């Protein structure tokens, strides 16, 4: 089974949009090993995503988890996959060599040319220079690593430029999400500017397509792929069904944004999963009533409990921000899809099917 390990609640950065409360709470070795055992307890795959806070503050735990899980994988024949989302500032060659050996997939939280707007070190120092160097190092060892950019309202003018910059650095897999939660305040003007940026990003994707190169930009290319496959984008959520976060104490929750809310506690790594509770919470997730009858119901993230909760306080209630953004994204992505398909259907199918 798949688990997200919150190795620490601590972080060496102080990002303006971050909703996580930072505190010096680290996962103990006992919790770590129990979590690894839980990942191997059922199914023929064990997956761990190292997360935080900043997971590289606890490199020692990552090394221990990798050693332990690789041995378990050899003993049991169960496949072991690992990933990590990091701010990158603490990456070094020793770690990257070990991670590469474990075939870890790393997602680097990097906002491109907007990095210093929101992503600063504790104390306020800019992070862009450090992270750019670390990004180059990461790509040297793991050229298929992903860049994960978060766009807050004040960073919207840098959206398209950031995608170009990250691609020039060497990232071919770029995820761009908009910042949610109480620390950001989106306005209609921001969303109008965002539309222009999305369209400009599509122009860049068209350039890349015409050159015969490959670039995946998270929300746009994903919308096209999901439409072809009739796949509902919010299904990856389903509150605890796909992947369960483990907090530093060993408690289990349906999604990272629910950590600390006792109403959503699904068990812990010592006593196991409360399966009735998982079923009850997953069963509670439903399509928001405001979305019933909308033609885009299966194309948008209306039932992503995490986004809804951050925006409205209710996992089953969609926000005007989410609705407006999703409609815009679908429209822009479909326009790009139609254009690329007309240009070269064969190449389009190769890229998006």
């Amino acid at each position: 089974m798949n688990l997200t390990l919150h190795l620490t609640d601590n972080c060496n950065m102080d990002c303006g949009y971050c909703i996580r409360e930072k505190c010096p709470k680290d996962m103990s070795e006992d919790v770590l090993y129990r979590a690894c055992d839980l990942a191997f307890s059922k199914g023929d795959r064990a997956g761990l995503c190292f997360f935080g806070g900043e997971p590289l503050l606890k490199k020692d735990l990552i090394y221990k988890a990798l050693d332990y899980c690789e041995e378990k994988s050899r003993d049991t024949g169960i496949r072991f996959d690992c990933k990590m989302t990091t701010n990158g500032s603490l990456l070094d060659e020793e770690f990257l060599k070990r991670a590469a050996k474990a075939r870890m997939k790393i997602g680097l939280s990097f906002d491109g040319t907007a990095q210093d707007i929101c992503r600063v070190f504790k104390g306020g120092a800019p992070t862009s220079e450090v992270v750019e160097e670390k990004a180059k190092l990461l790509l040297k060892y793991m050229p298929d690593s992903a860049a994960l950019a978060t766009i807050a309202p004040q960073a919207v003018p840098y959206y398209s430029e950031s995608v170009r910059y990250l691609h020039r650095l060497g990232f071919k897999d770029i995820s761009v999400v908009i910042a949610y939660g109480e620390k950001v305040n989106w306005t209609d003007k921001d969303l109008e500017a965002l539309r222009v940026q999305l369209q400009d990003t599509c122009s860049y994707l068209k350039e890349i397509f015409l050159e015969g190169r490959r670039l995946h930009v998270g929300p746009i290319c994903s919308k096209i792929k999901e439409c072809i496959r009739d796949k509902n984008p919010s299904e990856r959520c389903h509150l605890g069904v796909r992947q369960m976060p483990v907090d530093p104490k060993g408690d289990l929750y349906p999604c990272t944004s629910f950590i600390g809310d006792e109403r959503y506690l699904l068990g812990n790594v010592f006593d196991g999963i409360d399966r009735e509770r998982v079923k009850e919470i997953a069963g509670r997730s439903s399509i928001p009533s405001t979305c019933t009858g909308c033609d885009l119901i299966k194309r948008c993230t209306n039932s992503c409990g995490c986004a809804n909760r951050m925006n409205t306080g209710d996992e089953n209630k969609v926000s005007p921000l989410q609705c407006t953004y999703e409609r815009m994204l679908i429209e822009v992505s479909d326009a790009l899809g139609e254009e690329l398909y007309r240009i070269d259907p064969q190449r389009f199918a190769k890229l998006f099917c």
Partner: protein
Amino acid sequence: MKISKSKDYKKPLYALGAAAVLVAASLTGCHSGVELEGETQTADSDDRDTSTSIVELEGVAETAASESIVENEETADPTASEESKVDCSETEDELELEGGVALAD
């Protein structure tokens, strides 16, 4: 910003055309029609066709699994829907990278 229901949406042509390719690939079990695996790698290091072809095949199976959940959500019987949902210990989903939208693989 407002919540607004979209009406008169039609599935885009690109999706219909490309979906036909997917169906053909799943029926034949190979990539006929579109040379995915067999395509010559170019000198351009950006081209990742070979690895992508493997990912794409996994994607087809994943879609099928996901669809069953969509259908369950829409069933009239909420109890049936609840029972059919499984927790993460019972699925074989890809491990997700926290903090991003769906990535290329």
